[in-house]
């Protein structure tokens, strides 16, 4: 079993108006096999947390720590974090010109595992995973995310999740922009990965509808860069009914 531990994390970004603190002391412990949902209104810092864990250069950690089984994640480069077993399914996956999906998937898998996957089983694995996610076989020969629709990009993120088998997956608003059918397909992919790899999942979402398909063990409500409330799956149901107003209307 592995543990991802975030302790009193403070993160800021540089804006034209100077430094702006986005995360104001976040603490969270996720173990493999657990699913944590992070919910909250827009601008509360949910995506900042996701990007910071992955190591996006735009975000500066001013204090606090992130450790993976005791190892200092903040000391690791972006690629080292991925190789250590972390995966970020991005909210807006970028298009990478000139690199075919096939080539990209194989190169990434080789980097993560340290050895090239056996060609025959790998080709089969990719094909099976694509079929399960209802991704057209033709996508394999296209460039990474190039010309994919929003929904297709999200499926391809989950395809990678299934193939790379990380210890911890951070899903940054994977549900946004998906219709009901796509949401179901994507959720099934996440559940499969969790069952097969005993993965820990940090599910970041604005809406509760994805939680009908992916059952969280814990729900954390993010407000203004901090966790305002924590609970079990029942907290999500309450948010469904009440919205975030009760957190936002609390006088400062």
């Amino acid at each position, binding site marked *: 079993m592995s543990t991802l531990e975030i302790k009193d994390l403070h993160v800021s970004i540089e804006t034209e108006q100077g430094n702006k603190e986005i995360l104001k002391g976040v603490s969270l412990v996720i173990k493999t096999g657990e699913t944590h949902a992070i919910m909250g209104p827009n601008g509360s810092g949910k995506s900042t947390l996701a990007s910071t864990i*992955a*190591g*996006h*250069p735009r975000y500066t950690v001013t204090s606090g720590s992130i450790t993976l089984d005791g190892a200092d994640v903040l000391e690791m*480069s*972006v*690629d080292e*974090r*991925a*190789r250590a077993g972390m*995966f*970020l399914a*991005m909210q807006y*996956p*970028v298009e*990478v*010109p*000139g*690199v*075919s999906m096939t*080539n*990209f998937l194989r*190169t*990434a898998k080789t*980097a*993560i595992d340290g050895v090239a996957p056996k060609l025959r089983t790998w080709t089969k694995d990719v094909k099976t995973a694509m079929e399960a996610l209802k991704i057209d076989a033709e996508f394999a020969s296209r*460039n*990474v995310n190039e010309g994919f629709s929003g929904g297709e990009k999200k499926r391809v993120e989950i395809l*990678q999740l299934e193939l*790379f088998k990380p210890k911890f997956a951070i899903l940054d608003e994977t549900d946004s922009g998906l219709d009901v059918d796509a949401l179901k397909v994507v959720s099934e992919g996440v559940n499969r990965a969790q069952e097969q790899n005993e993965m820990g999942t940090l599910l970041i979402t604005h809406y509760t509808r994805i939680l009908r398909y992916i059952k969280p063990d814990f729900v954390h409500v993010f407000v203004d860069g901090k966790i305002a409330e924590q609970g079990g799956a029942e907290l999500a149901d309450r948010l469904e009914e009440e919205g975030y107003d009760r957190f936002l209307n609390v006088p400062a």
Partner: protein
Amino acid sequence: MTDTATHLTGEKARIGAPSISGFTEEGENLSPLNAAEVSSPIGGDAVKAHSHGGGAGIPDSSRAGRKTSYNVEDFPVLTGREEDFRFTPLKRMGGLHKNELTGVAPALTVEGANVSTLETVAMTDARVGSAGIPEDRISANAWKHAAEAKIVTIPANSTGEQVTLTYTGTSLEAAASHMVVIAEANSESVVVIDHVGSAVLAQNIEFDIRQGAKLTVISLQAWAEEAIHASSHLAKVGKDAHLKHIAVTYGGNLVRMTPSAHFDGEGGEVELFGLYFADAGQHLEHRLFVDHATENCKSNVLYKGALQGKDAHTVWVGDVLIRKEAKGTNSYEANRNLVLTEGARADSVPNLEIETGLIDGAGHASTTGRFDDEHLFYLMSRGIDEKTARRLVVRGFLNEIVQQIRVPEIEERLAETIERELAATDS
């Protein structure tokens, strides 16, 4: 109120009579030479002996109106403001456009000639000029100063010939050279033209591709870093003939290539591919022209370029002209650039002129993208280290052209070159 009304009247009066200097109804007139004198030699109505202007009534903005002539004097002295020289830094041309080109031309060696022949002849030989007429001043200047011409002949009906012609430059004195490649009827061959060493060279290469012949040309501009090269490739594509032309440019300080293809009979096909990789300070320019003047011909153009380093500059201009008589034409051209670092500049101008509606298809595309931090972050977030990520992108991008070459030694050499160029980015 009165004021406004007066103003409006003024606007109306100006319709159809643009008053902004340098602008015409067609848009910006980039060469003041064109604007100043209608009777300028590059004007459409100037037709002299040995010259083939577009004739009266064809605007200078059309490629059809571009002057062609064997005589350098027919082209006005270049100012750099001409449409076809507006991107070229003339100061760095080593005098190729204005000086006497009396330096020693790079030595030519030939390898792999089994059935083809190489002759050295005088510029007065009847075969010289059989496939093309210079389309700019540098090309005409090279024609004037070439001391001799090399003629490569691939015999009729022969197949499998693969000949490598290597130009090795040893001098930086401005020089001129001329070559004619004749692919006789129904022959099938690959001609590799390699440029290495140092030179300041203005060059014309004619390709006479006769009926039913299939010719693949791979021209490598692999010069040492101080070289200056203006290269005009003039191809005449016969009935049912096929030209596949691949330009690969990565060496030299300044390279300006102008591949130009003219169809000489029905059923011809032209594929023009290009790959260029510009480093800091390099100017690599490719201006191509496909002239559809006969029925039922096909052309396909794809050039891809990578740029890195301060003041790396690439220029790609693709002129495709489908004339009135070129019914049944099918044509496509595209240019794709990948800018790897800050400080590099890629200019890309596809020009498609269509004078008949009775065509099968015509299209063009141009993209210039940056390999930026977000691409890098995405690939690295999947465990791929920075160096590998960069290589992955550049190799993948250029591979589309590399795989067109189908000569293993050259593909290998290019792969190594790309590796070396990328290693320079890393450091």
